[in-house]
C-alpha cells in the first residue's frame, strides 16, 4: 500500500513554496519568473504522474493517506488522501496549470506576482482535492479564492473591479453558508472528519442527532437538518455553478485574464461538483433524497437555459462560460439521478454506476476541453489586440488553418462528438440517468442540441465565410502555443477512443459509492 508516503503533501507544498519564491521576486525578473513558474508546475506534474502510477486501481477507498494529529481539542487532524475522484481532479489540476502558464507567457505586467499567484491557486486546488478533514479542507477552499480574486482584480479586463468583487462576494456568501453548516455538524458530533461524519449522518440523516445534541430555541431537528443541508448545498451550488447562483460566472470568466479563466473553468468549477460528491452526498444522503426532485430539475432546467443563453452572447468568453454551466449541469443530473434511485435490490446499480462514472469522466473531460477552448480564445485575443466578439472576425480559417483545425476539434469535443472525450462522459451520464430519471434526462438532452447550435454558429462566424480584411495578416499558431494545447488535444482523442484509460482508476471508487449511497 502507498499510505504514509507524503506525496500529496509534497504536491500541495511544491507550488506553495514556488509561489512564495515568485511573489518575493522583483517585478523585473520576468523570464526568470516564467521559467521558475513553469518549472515548479512541471515538478508538480511529475509528482502527479507518480501519484497516478502508484495508485492501486483495484482499491476503491482512500489511498496515499497521511494522518497527523493537529488540534486534538477541536477534533482537527491533518488527513489527506485520494480515491479515484480525488486522483482524477488532482491530475486535472496539475495538467492544467502548466498549460495556463504557457498561455499567459506573453503577459508583461508584474509577471512574478502573476505566476506566483497561479502557483498558489494550484496549491489551494490540490489541497482542496486531497483534504479529508473539514478544517483544512475549508482552509484550502478559501485559499483558492484569494489568488483567484487578485488574478482577476489586477490583470483583468476593463470591468474587472466589479467582476472580481461579484466573484468574491458570491463565493464568500456560499462559503459562509458552508461554514455555518459545518459548525452545526461539529456541535452535534464533535468531529470535522469527513469519513466519521459520513458514518454518523450519511444514511440515517441528521434530524435525530440534531434533535438530541442541539438546542437552538425550539427549532426542530428535521428543520435544522434541512437548513444545514441547504446551507452546504448553497456553498457548492455557487461554485459549480447551478442556475440561478451563476451570475458571477460569465463576468468573472470574461474579465479574468484568459490564462486564469482556464483554471477557473478547468479546475475551480470542479471544486463545486467535487464537494457535492465528496461531502454533500456522503454526509447528507438522506436530506438530499428528500429534496431530490427540485434539485434534479433545477440542474436540468439550468443546463438547458444556459445552453440557449450562450447563443445570445456576443463575447466569446461569455459564450464559453455559459457552455460550462451547461456541461456541469449534466454532472448534477447524473449525481442526483444516481442518488435518488437504487432500491429494488440493486437492479439499477449498473445504471447508477454508469451515471456516477460518467460524472467524474465528464468533470475531467470538461476541464480539459473548456481550458483548451479558453486557451484558443486567449490566442485569438493576443492576435486581435483584445477583441473577442463573435462578430469581430470572419473567414480566419484561410489565414490560420492549424488554429482553426485544432480549435474546431476542441469545439467538437465540447459538443460531444463520438471519438473525442466529451461524448464518453455525456453518453455515460445519459445512459445511466435515462434509466433512472427518464423525464429529466430527456429534457436535458435538449441541451445537446442547443450546444451544437451555438458552437457551430461560433465556428461559422469566426472561421468561415469571406476573410475579414482586418485580419489578413494574422499568424498561425506558434511553437509555444502548440505546446500548450496539443497535449490536451491528444488527451481528448485518447479518452474518446479508449475511455478505460481514465475509467480504470475510477471504477473501484464508483462501485464503492454505489454501495454506500443506497437509500
Amino acid at each position, binding site marked *: 500500500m502507498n499510505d504514509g508516503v507524503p506525496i500529496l503533501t509534497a504536491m500541495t507544498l511544491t507550488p506553495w513554496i514556488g509561489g512564495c519564491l515568485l511573489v518575493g521576486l522583483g517585478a523585473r525578473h520576468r523570464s526568470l519568473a516564467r521559467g521558475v513558474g513553469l518549472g515548479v508546475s512541471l515538478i508538480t506534474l511529475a509528482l502527479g504522474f507518480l501519484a497516478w502510477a502508484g495508485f492501486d486501481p483495484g482499491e476503491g477507498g482512500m489511498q496515499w493517506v497521511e494522518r497527523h494529529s493537529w488540534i486534538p481539542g477541536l477534533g482537527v487532524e491533518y488527513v489527506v488522501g485520494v480515491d479515484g475522484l480525488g486522483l482524477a481532479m488532482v491530475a486535472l489540476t496539475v495538467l492544467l496549470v502548466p498549460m495556463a502558464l504557457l498561455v499567459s507567457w506573453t503577459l508583461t505586467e508584474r509577471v512574478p506576482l502573476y505566476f506566483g499567484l497561479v502557483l498558489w491557486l494550484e496549491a489551494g486546488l490540490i489541497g482542496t482535492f486531497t483534504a479529508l478533514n473539514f478544517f483544512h479542507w475549508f482552509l484550502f477552499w478559501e485559499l483558492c479564492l484569494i489568488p483567484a480574486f487578485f488574478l482577476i482584480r489586477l490583470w483583468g479586463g476593463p470591468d474587472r473591479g466589479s467582476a472580481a468583487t461579484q466573484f468574491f462576494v458570491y463565493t464568500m456568501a456560499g462559503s459562509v453558508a458552508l461554514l455555518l453548516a459545518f459548525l452545526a455538524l461539529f456541535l452535534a458530533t464533535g468531529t470535522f472528519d469527513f469519513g466519521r461524519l459520513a458514518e454518523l449522518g450519511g444514511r440515517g440523516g441528521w434530524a435525530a442527532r440534531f434533535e438530541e445534541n442541539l438546542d437552538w430555541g425550539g427549532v426542530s431537528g428535521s428543520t435544522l437538518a434541512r437548513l444545514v443541508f441547504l446551507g452546504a448545498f448553497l456553498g457548492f451550488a455557487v461554485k459549480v455553478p447551478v442556475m440561478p447562483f*451563476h451570475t458571477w460566472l460569465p463576468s468573472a470568466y470574461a474579465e479574468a485574464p484568459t490564462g486564469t479563466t482556464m483554471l477557473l473553468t478547468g479546475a475551480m468549477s470542479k471544486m463545486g461538483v467535487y464537494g457535492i460528491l465528496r461531502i454533500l452526498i456522503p454526509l447528507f444522503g438522506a436530506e438530499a433524497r428528500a429534496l431530490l426532485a427540485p434539485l434534479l430539475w433545477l440542474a436540468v432546467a439550468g443546463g438547458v*437555459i444556459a445552453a440557449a443563453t450562450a447563443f*445570445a452572447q456576443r463575447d466569446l468568453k461569455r459564450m464559453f462560460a455559459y457552455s460550462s454551466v451547461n456541461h456541469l449541469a449534466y454532472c448534477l443530473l447524473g449525481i442526483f439521478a444516481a442518488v435518488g434511485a437504487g432500491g429494488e435490490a440493486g437492479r439499477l446499480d449498473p*445504471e447508477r454506476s454508469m451515471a456516477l462514472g460518467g460524472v467524474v469522466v465528464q468533470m475531467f473531460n470538461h476541464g480539459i476541453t473548456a481550458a483548451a477552448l479558453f486557451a484558443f480564445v486567449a490566442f485569438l485575443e493576443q492576435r486581435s489586440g483584445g477583441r473577442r466578439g463573435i462578430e469581430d472576425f470572419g473567414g480566419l480559417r484561410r489565414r490560420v488553418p492549424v488554429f482553426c483545425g485544432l480549435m474546431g476539434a476542441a469545439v467538437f469535443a465540447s459538443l460531444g462528438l463520438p471519438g473525442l472525450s466529451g461524448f464518453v462522459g455525456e453518453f455515460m451520464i445519459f445512459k445511466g440517468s435515462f434509466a433512472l430519471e427518464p423525464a429529466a434526462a430527456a429534457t436535458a438532452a435538449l441541451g445537446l442540441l442547443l450546444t451544437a447550435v451555438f458552437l457551430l454558429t461560433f465556428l461559422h462566424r469566426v472561421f468561415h465565410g469571406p476573410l475579414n480584411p482586418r485580419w489578413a495578416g494574422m499568424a498561425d499558431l506558434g511553437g509555444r502555443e502548440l505546446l500548450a494545447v496539443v497535449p490536451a488535444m491528444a488527451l481528448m482523442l485518447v479518452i474518446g477512443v479508449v475511455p478505460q484509460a481514465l475509467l480504470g482508476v475510477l471504477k473501484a471508487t464508483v462501485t464503492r459509492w454505489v454501495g454506500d449511497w443506497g437509500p
Partner: protein
Amino acid sequence: MEWIRDHLWWIPVLPLLAAGVSALLPRGWRRMSAGLAIGSLAAALVLSVLALGVSLGLSGMGSVNPAAVNFRWLDAGLGVVRLGWVLDPLGACMLVMVSLVGLLIFSYSVGYMAEDENFTRFFCFLALFAGAMLGLVMANSLLLLFACWELVGLASYLLIGFWYQKPEAAAAARKAFITTRIGDVAFFLGLVWWYAESGTVLFYDTGAGCLEPRALDLLSGRTTILGMATATGVALLLFVGAIGKSGQVPLHVWLPDAMEGPTPVSALIHAATMVAAGVFLVARVYPLMALGGGDGPSAALQAVTWVGAVTAVFAATVAVAQTDIKRVLAYSTVSQLGFMMLGLGTGGVAVGMFHLLTHAFFKALLFLGAGSVIHGVGGEQDIRRMGGLRRWMPVTFATYAIGMMALAGVPVVFSGFWSKDEILHAAHAWPVSQVPFCLALAGALLTAFYMTRQMAYVFFGAHRGAGKGEPAHPPHESPRLMTVPLGVLAAGAVGLGFLGTPAWPGLESYWTGRPAEFDPGRLLAPEAVSLMLLSAVVVAVGMGLGWWLYGRRPITQATEPDRFAQRFPATFRLWQRKYGVDEFYAATVVRAHGLLARWGDWVDRWIWGGLVLAAGLLAVGAAWVSRFLDEWGVNLGFDRGCGGLRLGGWRLALFQDGRVQGYLRALAMGVVLLVLLLTWGTR
C-alpha cells in the same frame, strides 16, 4: 471465414488511419494524400469483397447468429459497455457498395479537384467520410453505429463547407449539421431508452443481443406513457434519427443546400454514405421496427411508410421546378429516399435495401455526370444556360442518359425499374391503405417527368451559354480519370437490377436466407405483369409529357420562361419556393430559439443580476447605516471624548508653559484665594 470475421475491423480503420495521417500532411503533399485515401479504400474494397464472398455462404438475417465479434469498451465498475462488429448479408453488401462507389468517386475527385488548393485536406475528409460509413455499416452495436453516424455527420459538415469562404457553403454546412443533429438527439434518446429496457445494445450476442428473440420478446410486452408500446417509442425515436439523416420530410431541408459542396461530395452524400445511413438504420433495426402491431404492420412501420410516401411525392414536385442541375438531383434523392422508406415500411428489408443499392449506383452516376457537365461548361450550374451538350460531351451524355433512365425506371433494362417495381408491388400489397401506393405512382410519374425535363434542358436544344450557338470556349468532354468511373457506374446502374427481378430474386433470398431459384414463371404471374405494365405506362406518360413540353420544340433562349410555368404559374411558383418550408422554419423554430436565448440572457442580466444587485445594494445600504451609526454614534462619542481630553490637556498644558511670571501670578492668585478662603471659612 474466421479470418475475415476477426479482421473485419480493418475495413473502416484503414480509411480512418489514412484520414488521420493525411490530416497531418503539409498542404503540398497532394499525391500522398490522394494515394492514401484511394489505396486504403481499395484495400477496404478487397476485404469487403472477401467478406461478401464469405457472407454468401452464411444464412440470412435472423435465422442463425451472424458472425459477430464483441469486445468491452468501457467498464464503470458495475456497468459495462460493449461494442462489436458483425458480418451478415445486410452489412456485407453495403460494405462492397460503399467501398466500390466510394472508390470510383475518389478517383473521379482526383480529376475534379485537381485545381483546388486544399486538395490534400479534401482527400483527408473523403477518407474520414468513407471510414465512418464503413464503420456504421459493420457495427454490431447501436452505440458504435451511433458513433459512426455522428462521424459521418462531421465529415459531411466538413465537406459541404469545404469551400468555406463561400458564405452559402458555410451556412449550408452548419444547417446540415444542426438539422441532422435534431434527428441525432432523438436517435440518442432512443438509444439510451433501448439500452435501459434491454440492458444491451449489441445487435447480436449469441442469443443475448437486443435484436435477438429473447430481448425482443421481453420488450414486446412493455408499454409506456399513453399506452404506447415501449418498442414503438424506441423505434419512432430511432426513426426520427433516420428522418434527419436520410432527408425525409420534415427534416429534409438540409439536403438540397448540401449541394454547395464540391460535386463529388454531393455524389458521396447522396449515393453511398450520409443519406444511405438513415435507410440502413431502419433496415438494421427492422426486427424492432416490426415489433408489435399484431397481424398487421406495426405502428412504427406504418409511420415509416407514410413518411416515405409523402416524402416521395413532396420532393418530386419540388424537383420539377428547380433550375440548378444539382438541386434537381438533390430533390430527386430526397424523393427516392422516400421510396426506400416506403419499401422498408411495406415490404421489408430486402425491398428497401434493393432500391438503396441500385440508387447508389445511378445517383452517383448522375451526380458525377452533373459534375462532368459543370466541369465542361466552366462552372455553370443553371440548366437554362446549358443546352445541346450532347454534341460536345458524348460520353457524359451517354452515361447520364443511362443514369436518367435508371432513375426514371425505364422498363426491363435498367436497375431502377426492378427496384422500384418491388416497392410498388409491396405498397400495393400493403393491408392498411392504398394511398401510399397511389402516392408512389405519382412520385414515379413526376420522376420520369422532371428527369426528362432536365435532359432536354442540358443535352438537347440549342446551346444557351456564353456565346450562343458555337461558343467561344466550347464545352469540352472531361478527362478519362472522370469518364471511366462514369462508365463503371453506368454498368452498375444497368446490371444491378438483374439481382432482384421477380424471376430470380437473388438479393432478397440472400437477405432472407431462402434459396433463390430461377423461375421465369413468376415474371409472368398476372399480378406481377399488370403492375409492371402499370409502372411502365406511368414512366412512359411521365417521359412523354416531359418530352412534349420541353423536347418537342427546342429551347432556344436562356431567358425563356419555363413551359410548365406558362401553363400552371401558381403551382410552379409554389414548387419553386419548395412550399416555403425553409421560411416556415425560419419564422418558427429558429425564431423561437433566438427568443429563448435572448430571454435567458435578459433574465440573467435583469432578474438574477437584479437580485444580486439588490442584495449588493442592500449590503451597501447596511454598510451605510452601520457607518452612520459608527460616525454619529460610536465615533462621535469617542471623538467627543477624545476632543474633550485633548482640550483638557491643552488647557492643562497652558499651566505649564514655562513663563515664570505666569506661575508667580497664579501663585499669587492662589495665595490670595487661599487667604480669602481661610478667612471666609474660619469666620
